[in-house]
């Protein structure tokens, strides 16, 4: 009788282990899948930029410097690998593009050009998609990390050596911490 009980507990334990293990695996796969999605969108942006540059080149004769920056930032971003360096290169590219769009505002010819407006809309949309993909990725990473660290799961994760995943960091300018004065005035 006692033997049966022990066997029962062992079987339950194994089942429990399987459930947790599978849960962790599926969460990890979600994280990796969403990383691919960021890649897809980043590539989309990389593909759009040469089009934009060649379309506006003629009108922006005196802004070659800004265009150069966009081109070189794109080249760097295409070459980067790994979440950390990729995030940095992409932030550079975002800033360079922002500068270019600001400059384009001063050229009424460009603003009335259907082709340019379409490209600009495509790039805006792609940037939104990148932001959304990153948001999804970070949400999933947070989710996965929590699953690794909560109480019974942490045994399983250390047993099977699950690694944590890195966050895709936000652009540096949004990181500025608002200055808060917490000192008590007397």
């Amino acid at each position, binding site marked *: 009788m006692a033997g049966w009980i022990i066997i029962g507990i062992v079987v339950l334990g194994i089942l429990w282990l399987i459930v947790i293990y599978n849960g962790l695996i599926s969460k990890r796969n*979600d994280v990796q899948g*969403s990383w691919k*999605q960021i890649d897809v969108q980043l590539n989309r942006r990389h593909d759009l930029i040469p089009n934009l540059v060649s379309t506006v080149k003629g009108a922006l004769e005196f802004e070659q410097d800004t265009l150069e920056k966009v081109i070189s930032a794109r080249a760097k971003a295409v070459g980067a690998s790994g979440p950390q360096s990729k995030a940095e290169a992409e932030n550079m590219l975002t800033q360079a593009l922002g500068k270019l769009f600001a400059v384009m505002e001063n050229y009424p010819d460009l603003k009335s050009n259907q082709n340019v*407006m379409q490209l600009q809309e*495509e790039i805006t949309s792609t940037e939104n998609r990148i932001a*959304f993909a990153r948001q999804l990725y970070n*949400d999933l990473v947070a989710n996965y990390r929590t699953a690794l660290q909560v109480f019974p799961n942490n045994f399983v994760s250390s047993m099977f050596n699950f690694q944590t995943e890195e966050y895709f960091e936000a652009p540096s300018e949004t990181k500025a911490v608002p200055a808060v004065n917490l000192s008590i005035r007397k």
Partner: protein
Amino acid sequence: MPLTFIDIERQKNWRITLFFLVLMVLYLAVVALFSAALPGPLIVESRFWIFLVVASFLAAGIHFWFSAANAVDTVVRRLDAQPPDPKDDIHRMFANIIQELHVVSGNKRDIRCAVIPSLSLNALAAADLKGNAVIAVTEGLLSRLTRPQIEAVVAHEAHHILSGDCLETTVAASIFGTFSSAMEKIRYTSSNRLFASPAFLLAWVLLQLGYLLNLFISREREYRADAAAVRMTRNPLALAETLHFLSRGWRGAGFIGSGFEMLCIVNPMATALDETEGFLPDLLSTHPPLRKRMDLLLAMARVSVAELDSNVERRSGEKQADSAPNYFAMSPRQQWQGPFTGGELDVLPWLSPLTWVATGEGQSAERAWKDPLINAIFLRRLAGETRTDSGFTCPSCRQPLATAAYKGTQVFQCSFCAGMLVENGKIPRIIARTGRERPCTERLNALARSVLQQNQTRNIYRKVSAHGAGPVPLLPCPKCKNPMYRGFYSTAHLIEVDRCSFCGLTWFDQDELEMLQCMIENRLLPEVPLTV
């Protein structure tokens, strides 16, 4: 947990089963009611009842399948919604936004998008048993909201679809709702005899049930969709602004038929019930109070309603501050353009003394000739003209009329509005010479025909409603300055002209003289003999 993890889309909903049961009971009741008229012994037999249950089950099943399986197509067809036009900038933006939301929700489900050709402000989502889903947005909403605001609306609708609660509402709407909006039409168009027929009775019961359905649709889902929209876009303020905006606009009452209201982001019919809370409203209303929704969103954004209000106002105020001494002008396409400085106005090709001009937002609009600064522009333009001044002023533009040759005779023409002042004696001459020089063009003919038609209906209407004073003030005679008499050239030629009976002059606005000639030449006459 992010939405993407919740895979409830496949989950069968108990409410859908319930709808089916309600439908079946309904058919059973109707069939039983009619069979009550049959001879007595048949009713007692149990086989008869089994037959009834099976028959109503089949009928309900057929009804259910035909209305629920292709519900998305039905909704789209009924609203005449079109897929976004890829050549249209704003439509393309909308299609892009849907793709963006596919990204943020992890590409779990393919959602179609559609544009409803209506100026109202509303959006709706529909999903059906075949797995189709659509988000439809009105043309008015697309053109008046900013990109982040449209994003928030679409995210709200996307959550309805992803969470699965859209499926149950669509099924409910298509089983009872499409029926009820069809019924509304019948009620308006058909004669009373139809009300007595049994088919109508059945439909009427369905219609009433359609209202009762609101019991099953909880208000909670709107709150949840709002929260999910914020989670997707991280922008509670955009959604709050949108709701604020929608609360003040036309939400499509009358265009979006009843039965679809539970699919919409805001109830097309603004009812008092919707804006109250409590047990009964919670039970009967499909949408929570807009005010409450906005409060929740603004709490997330840490902004108060008053701040939102002043925000909106400040934004429009900023525009005004930038354009300190500026003018806004109504373009020929009836759109306000501006701000312009005096110099910019000077080079506007379409600026005429009749253009509506306002000196800033919120200022009342005036004709351009009334502003002495702008009037100077016209005087300058005239200085270059070689035509001789006739000494008369144009009754609408108040600019000098120049003598001009028309069909070999001399008339007085305004350089701006192209109106013509003709002495009465010369009119028959001009009409007789219609065929010479410039014959009637296609454009003039079409114009004359439509003016004729319009004036004809107006003429009849006017007789019925006992001479309503027209909104257009009477024009002063260019010669004696007395108000001119406005009327049709004759009862057979319905062209509105202004006449001064003292001076014997007739004023034709632009194209009116030409149209009169075309009417006479081509015998465009009123179709109905007009009796006085």
